[in-house]
Each structure stands twice: as C-alpha cells, then as structure tokens.
C-alpha cells in the first residue's frame, strides 16, 4: 500500500477547543544534520559526580530529575504518559538525539520565517505543550528554572551560538518509492511491539509508564515535532530498537515511522476554529512530511483522541 498525500477536501468541523496561549507556535524543525562519520567526536558534557554540593548542584539535580521523570515531578504541566528523556535519550546527553548541550548555547534563537526571537524557556514551553501534550510552565517557574540549570550545566565548556555536531537527529533520506505503511506494520510487529505494546500504547509498571506510548491519548500530540515522519524516522534510525540504534535500514525507519504516525493522537492545540483543514493549511502543509489532515484508509487523520 504505497502512500501518497491526498489532502482531504472535506471540511470537517470540530468543537472549538478553548484557545490556549501558545508561546512558541511551532516545534521548529532543527536544520537536519548529516549522518555522522564513523568515529565522530562529540562534545562531552560533565559527569554527575562533578556536581558541587551547593545550591547550584541542588538545582541541577532537580532539573535532571524533572527531565527523566516529568510526569511525577511536574504533573501540573504534563498531559500524557511521557517524560522529556523518552525522546532526548541518555537524560538529554546523547549526541544525535537533540541533547541539551547542543540546544542551550543556541538560544535566544532568531527565526526569519516569522521574524521572531525565541528564548530557551519558550523552546522548552513548546515541548511541554506539544510533546508532553500539557500546559507550558510559566517562564519564571521553578520547573523551567531547574531544567534551564540542568541544560546550562550540561553545556559547561561548549561554545555559544555555534552548531555542535550531534545537535539534531541525523537526517534519513526518504525511500525513493515513498514509504509503505504495510511494511511499516511488519517492522513494528517484529521489532517494536515487544516493548511499546501491540497497539502502540506503551507498557506500565503499576502507575508508571516504563515503555512510552507511541500513539493514542497518552502520547505526544499532533503539534509535536515527532509527528513529522521525517523527524520520527531520524529519531528511530538513531535510537530504536532501544540499545540497538542504527540497526534498521533507512527504508525500515521511514516505513515504521510512517506507520506510527498514521495513528490518532491528541489534537493539535493550535486547532483553528475546529477545522482540521485550516489547521493543516497553516501549520502542517509546510512542516516536513506528515499525515495531519490527510486521508489514510478512508479516514482523515487529525481528529484527536479526546
């Protein structure tokens, strides 16, 4: 079943969601980096044992704890089953996995697209709103202060305003013939379901998610960067199956990323007047490869899960 983009012409209208303030209105796609050369050298963040036993060390440790256990440490801002570290591997340290040491020195960031400047706090607020399907913490909140302290500390010795190797997920070229959802399902069943569950729902131990959900109401929403198939393919190729990163072919990574992102997830909080069509036009049409507002198997995606 080859996929082609068939933007739905149907004018679907949904109940208008209460308009939430969106501090940074898209999960701006990082300029993709090339696949790293073998034996590439990356920036080395300091080790935890180097942290001082004072108020600074305390704040950094708290930031790290929030980053790896966001649902428990900052429940008022999280609306799904995810933690920051689910996508920023090795607690935000791993190169090629959007590490915090690659991010922090690049802000405030100017974006010519809308002639705006975004601060580091706003970038993190974006991840809360979209990836965590939650409510962004205020810029002066303790949660953002702690996460900023953690990022600052990880960046110790890194140059400012210079793109470091390993900042983004390395780009994976789209297969020449496009992606294939049926083959994506096969990869999923053979290599992913053992951890993420047969329905992408993740797996819990007691109340805690151990394996994060890949779609459905507990996953990232339709506005998150990971909803782009190109971004998800790059992440998956680099880091999945867990511990066996780099083992999938480019084609497998694209197929399984497309399969994952052809399922429903929470609505895009930027939904315009309840219209998927309008929202696709404004926010998704030029945002990499994605299936928001696109018809798959006779159903227009982007309905949301609630």
């Amino acid at each position, binding site marked *: 079943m080859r996929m082609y983009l068939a933007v739905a012409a149907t004018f679907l209208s949904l109940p208008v969601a209460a308009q939430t303030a969106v501090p940074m209105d898209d999960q701006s796609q990082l300029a993709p980096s090339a696949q790293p050369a073998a034996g590439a050298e990356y920036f080395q963040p300091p080790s935890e044992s180097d942290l001082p036993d004072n108020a600074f060390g305390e704040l950094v440790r708290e930031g790290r704890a929030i980053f790896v256990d966001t649902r*428990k440490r900052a429940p008022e801002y999280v609306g799904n089953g995810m933690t920051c570290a689910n996508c920023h591997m090795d607690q935000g340290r791993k190169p090629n996995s959007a590490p915090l040491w690659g991010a922090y020195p690049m802000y405030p960031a100017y974006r010519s697209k809308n002639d705006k400047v975004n601060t580091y706090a706003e970038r993190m607020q974006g991840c809360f709103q979209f990836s965590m399907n939650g409510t962004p913490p205020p810029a002066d909140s303790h949660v953002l202060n702690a996460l900023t302290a953690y990022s600052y500390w990880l960046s110790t010795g890194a140059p400012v305003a210079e793109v470091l190797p390993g900042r983004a997920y390395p780009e994976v070229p789209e297969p020449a013939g496009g992606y294939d959802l049926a083959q994506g399902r096969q990869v999923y069943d053979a*290599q992913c379901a053992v951890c993420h569950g047969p329905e992408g729902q993740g797996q819990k131990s007691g109340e805690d998610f151990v394996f994060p959900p890949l779609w459905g109401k507990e996953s990232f929403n339709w506005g998150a960067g990971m909803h782009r198939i190109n971004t998800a393919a790059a992440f998956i190729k680099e880091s999945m199956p867990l511990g066996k990163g780099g083992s999938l072919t480019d084609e497998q990574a694209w197929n399984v990323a497309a399969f994952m992102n052809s399922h429903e997830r929470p609505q895009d909080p930027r939904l315009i007047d309840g219209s998927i069509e309008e929202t696709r036009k404004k926010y998704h049409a030029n945002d990499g490869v994605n299936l928001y507002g696109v018809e798959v198997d006779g159903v227009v995606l982007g309905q949301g899960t609630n």
Partner: protein
Amino acid sequence: MKTISVAAGLLTCLLTTSIQADAGADIYSKGGANAAALACVTCHGADGLGMAASGFPRLAGLSATYMEKQLHDLKAGSRVAPVMSPIVNALTDEEIQSVSQYIENMPTPSYPRVERSSEVDSLGAQLALRGAWDRNIPECVSCHGPGGVGVGDAFPPLVGQSSNYLASQLVAWREGTRQNDPNDLMGHIARSMTDEEVTAVSDYFSGLGK
C-alpha cells in the same frame, strides 16, 4: 433451562480453574506425573524465592507467559541449564502451563521502586539507573522497570534474584548458552559489559531485594 445451563457452564469454568490451580500447586510441591519431573520446591523453595547460595532463582510472581517460554526454551535448547534439562524434558505442555500459572500467582515481598531520577553512588547503580550509552547500553530500569521489578510478559524482575544467579545469566548470554531473548535485546548488552560491570550490577539488584 437457560439459567441452569449458564450456571452449569460457570460452575465448570470455576472448577476447571481451581483444578488447574491445584494441578499447578501439586507440580510445584510434588513434581510432575513423570518421576523425572522433580518438584520445583526442592530448589526454588516453598515461597518460590529461590536459594541464593546455590544460585537457584526466584520464580514467585514471574509472568506465566514468560515462565512458559523459558520452560519451552530450556526444552528446545535455546537456553541451557544442566540442572533443569532432565526436569523440563519430563514435563508435559499442560503441566508447564499449569505450573507457570501457579508461579505467577505466588505472593512476593514488596520491593523498593528505585526510579531513574534517583542519585547513584556505585558502579552497579550507575548502570541500572544511567546505563552506559557510549556503548549503547540503556539504563536497566528502562526495560525492567523501577527498581527492576519487571514489566509485562517479556521483561522479568531482577530484584529478588541473587547476585550469583544474575551474574550467571549475563555470562550465559556472553558465552551463547542463553540465546532465547527477543531479537537479541539482552544478548548484545551482555556482550558489551565488562566483568566488573557484570558483578556490580548483579550485586546492585540483589541488594535491593534484601
């Protein structure tokens, strides 16, 4: 009439379940129909928590699906354990099923749920809660759950096992005498670990159960 047959159906249902449970308990404490299928209790203890000194593992509370798979794999040879092989060879499929169900339902002590957000103070804790990502080794708890309590039908508990047993399994993966993990998920990790790490992480998880 209908009510009666429904009631009768229910009764049969209940009876079969309790017969199965009894059968499982019997196999556990007295052994299988074939005399070579020795009673589990001999080595794994009445409480199913194993015998640390001799390296016999905890079974209590392990998922029945996981346990059935292990017993079948021991039969098939993708997992090698000399003490177990005459025993599994003497068990029928039905016996494997009922004893696995019984084992899953055995009560277990409550273990501490140490999370990734906790601080680390030893090499073992470092591997368990931080991993060694420079070698693509994830945090143990990212699959085995907080404190290594186990997750679902594929990721068994590590806590409550002895250091002896845990280390013996990591070594079995390294040496290829255990190859029954899904997609070599554990094998490739074990093969990247140093001897020092094998000991440290085994001590860490066994320590949490004490």
